[in-house]
């Protein structure tokens, strides 16, 4: 009671306002909008700016006042704070940038006021605009029972229909999904929470489950609490389970892949247990937009890379999320819709075809002479005069080739091959390339040596998204380092010593115990 009064007293000096943004100026908001937003969102706010035709998802059409990231119930208008949040943070996984550092507080407030003028719904006072009352996150988020409860509701609600059994957006309904404007939409890959539009924390996921993402197939699950299908806490467990599918922190992009030396032979299978003990590195890929035949909607958003060697052979494991094991004829209509939506610069949309999935790993032909000489061939598959050495893998026919690329359009196979083994599991490709460190063709095939920084780059294609040729996802140059074996004296011996001591100690103790029991037996 007293604390409530104190609270009231404390609150009294501040002006009470129903809008968190009391002073908003739509005239100034318009100026900000025209300068920064109209290129994507269109002069009239219809989501049809000059750049829009290349985007998937498309920029928001403000005239319908339908927003994805809200704290309000399904179908209701967003609060001003919701809009501000979307503008501040952007919508990860889409072209919508974060504006916080770029525009002043006043500019962002004004532009919120301005985008609301595009729809008469905001002026309609009968519209209910109230944030839902969310409970706080219950503790025990990562406990086994919590995650088990979460998984149970993932199954019983049927999230897998869209998001797939393991959550990579490959459910049976996924290939039929459209947003409200009729554009194809992907069921989110729940293993990449850093690409969630509304943020990747368990709290944010819980909010999205309560509100749904309006304008998309992703529904609200609030009614299920009202109808006692599950409790609020169980919905939290579901959010925590979804959170647990992604790494605890968004992957950090590091420049160098460290491939430790192991006692041979190197693993050739992508599901070898060795890989569980080797660090993995994330490399984001982006659409190829440098050259004609540009591609603005890359399906392979990044690759996880691991490497080991045994002094003779390198094994490089590349894994990435892909909803489809292409070619998959069931996805052809979806592929056609994607191609029609993301206008390339070619004349007319290309026809959907059963392309395979592909992956390429690229190296320079030779390592620079001096370690300081870091000049590398052109990252986009080299050039006529300065080709690059590549490993290429395709899903169908299942094969791998090594060769020289002279730009995107020319690839000449080399006689010296690279071995590859791949497996596809619930929306994930896992691929292992193996090759001898040293090969006879030293002129064309990079000689992999320990202790050197070996430039490396990656390219990915998802056939079922219509990716082929220059329609692909690309990375920039990174480095691969084959680590030298750690001298036993430094690393292994302390551990061994500890184990030996422990082991010996146990043996001694056991012997003593056995002797003691034996003696006791005899005495009885």
């Amino acid at each position, binding site marked *: 009671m007293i604390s409530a009064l104190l609270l009231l007293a404390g609150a009294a000096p501040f002006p009470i306002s129903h809008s968190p943004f009391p002073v908003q100026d739509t005239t100034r908001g318009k100026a900000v909008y025209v300068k920064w937003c109209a290129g994507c969102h269109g002069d009239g706010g219809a989501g049809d700016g000059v750049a829009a035709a290349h985007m998937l998802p498309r920029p928001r059409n403000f005239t*319908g006042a*339908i927003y994805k990231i809200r704290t309000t119930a*399904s*179908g*209701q*208008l967003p609060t001003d704070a919701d809009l501000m949040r979307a503008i501040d943070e952007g919508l990860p996984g889409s072209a919508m940038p974060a504006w916080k550092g770029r525009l002043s507080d006043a500019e962002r407030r004004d532009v919120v006021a301005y985008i609301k003028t595009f729809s008469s*719904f905001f002026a309609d006072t*009968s*519209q209910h605009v109230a944030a839902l009352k969310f409970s706080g996150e219950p503790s025990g988020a990562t406990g086994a029972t919590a995650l088990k409860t979460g998984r149970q509701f993932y199954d*019983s*609600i*049927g999230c897998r*229909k*869209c998001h797939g059994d393991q959550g990579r957006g490959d459910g*049976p*309904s996924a290939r*039929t*999904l*459209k947003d*409200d404007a009729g554009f194809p939409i992907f069921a989110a890959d729940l293993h990449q929470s850093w690409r969630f539009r509304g943020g990747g924390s368990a709290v944010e996921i819980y909010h999205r489950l309560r509100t*749904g993402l*309006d*304008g*998309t*197939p*992703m*529904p*609200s*699950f*609030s*009614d*299920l609490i009202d*109808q006692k*299908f599950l409790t609020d806490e169980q919905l939290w467990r579901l959010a925590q389970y979804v959170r647990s599918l992604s790494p605890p922190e968004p992957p950090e992009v590091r420049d160098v892949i460290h491939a430790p030396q192991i006692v041979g032979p190197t693993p050739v299978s992508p599901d070898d247990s060795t890989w569980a003990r080797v660090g993995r590195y994330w490399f984001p890929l982006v659409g190829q937009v440098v050259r004609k035949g540009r591609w603005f909607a890359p399906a392979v958003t990044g690759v996880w890379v691991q490497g080991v060697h045994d002094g003779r052979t390198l094994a490089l494991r590349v894994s990435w999320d892909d909803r489809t094991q292409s070619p998959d004829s069931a996805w052809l209509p979806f592929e056609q819709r994607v191609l029609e939506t993301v206008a390339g610069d070619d004349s007319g949309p290309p026809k959907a075809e059963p392309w395979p999935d592909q992956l390429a790993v690229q190296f320079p032909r030779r390592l620079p002479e001096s370690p300081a000489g870091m000049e590398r061939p052109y990252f986009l598959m080299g050039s006529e005069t300065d080709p690059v050495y590549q490993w290429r893998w395709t899903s169908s026919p299942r094969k791998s080739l090594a060769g020289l690329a002279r730009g995107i359009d020319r690839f000449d196979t080399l006689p010296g091959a690279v071995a590859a083994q791949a497996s596809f599991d619930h929306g994930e490709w896992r691929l292992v390339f193996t090759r001898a460190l040293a090969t006879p063709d030293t002129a064309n095939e990079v000689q992999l040596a320990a202790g050197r920084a070996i430039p490396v780059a990656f390219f990915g294609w998802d056939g079922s998204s219509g990716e082929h040729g220059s329609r692909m996802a690309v990375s920039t140059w990174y480095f691969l380092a084959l680590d030298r074996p750690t001298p036993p004296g430094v690393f292994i011996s302390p551990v061994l010593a500890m184990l030996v001591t422990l082991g010996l100690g146990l043996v001694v103790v056991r012997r003593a115990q056995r002797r003691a029991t034996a003696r006791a037996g005899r005495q009885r």
Partner: protein
Amino acid sequence: MRKLGAVAATGVVLLVLALAGWMRAPLPAAQGGATISGKVKFTGAKPTMPKIDMTEEPKCKAKYTAAPPTDEAVVVNANGTLANVFVYVKAGLPEGYKAPAPAGPVTLDQDGCRYHPHVLGILVGQQLAIKNSDGILHNIKAKGTKNRPFNISQPTVMTSDRTFTAPEVMVPLECNVHGWMHAWLGVLPHPFFAVSGSDGSFTIKGLPPGTYTVEAWQEKYGTQTATVTVAGSETKTADFTFAAK
């Protein structure tokens, strides 16, 4: 005495309140006895509707033992007429006419991974009871433009209630788990609407006398209108004909 005074005062207050309420209330629904009825005819080649593959949902698939389910965008009846045509009074009622929403709900059932009915009408403010009889996951999404949308999940046998705030012909309803599931909802401020049945006929009852624009809406073939004048308790006929495209 004091007691009596209090009662009287309360009475006056109540009366004033009631009057105020009455004055603010929408125009009461005019009572009428006229009827407009007719048939929705169809000419041209009967289109073949694509079959729906429900292999993904065995529980739904099992409900179609006689013939496989087909798309319902055009349903031609045995007598050559059209079913699922929404016929309603588009104009002619007094300006601002608003009938009170009936107490009972309109039910939309999800059964066999299809909506029943496929086309339906409702009054502004009246409850739409969305029922899931299948007991498998459906989501139901309303995609109106004059009404706020909604998209809710129903993973089990359950009923969710929603209402609509503005007249709109039509609000599309759909399920995204089953891309073939579509229904159409006409939201009106009055009860003068009907949906053509399995013999292609419709009847709109209780109309006050007047001259009305009656519109027939078909999912694929668009709309047609007719002007009909009714007086007293007479019944007038308005037939519509849609041609194959």
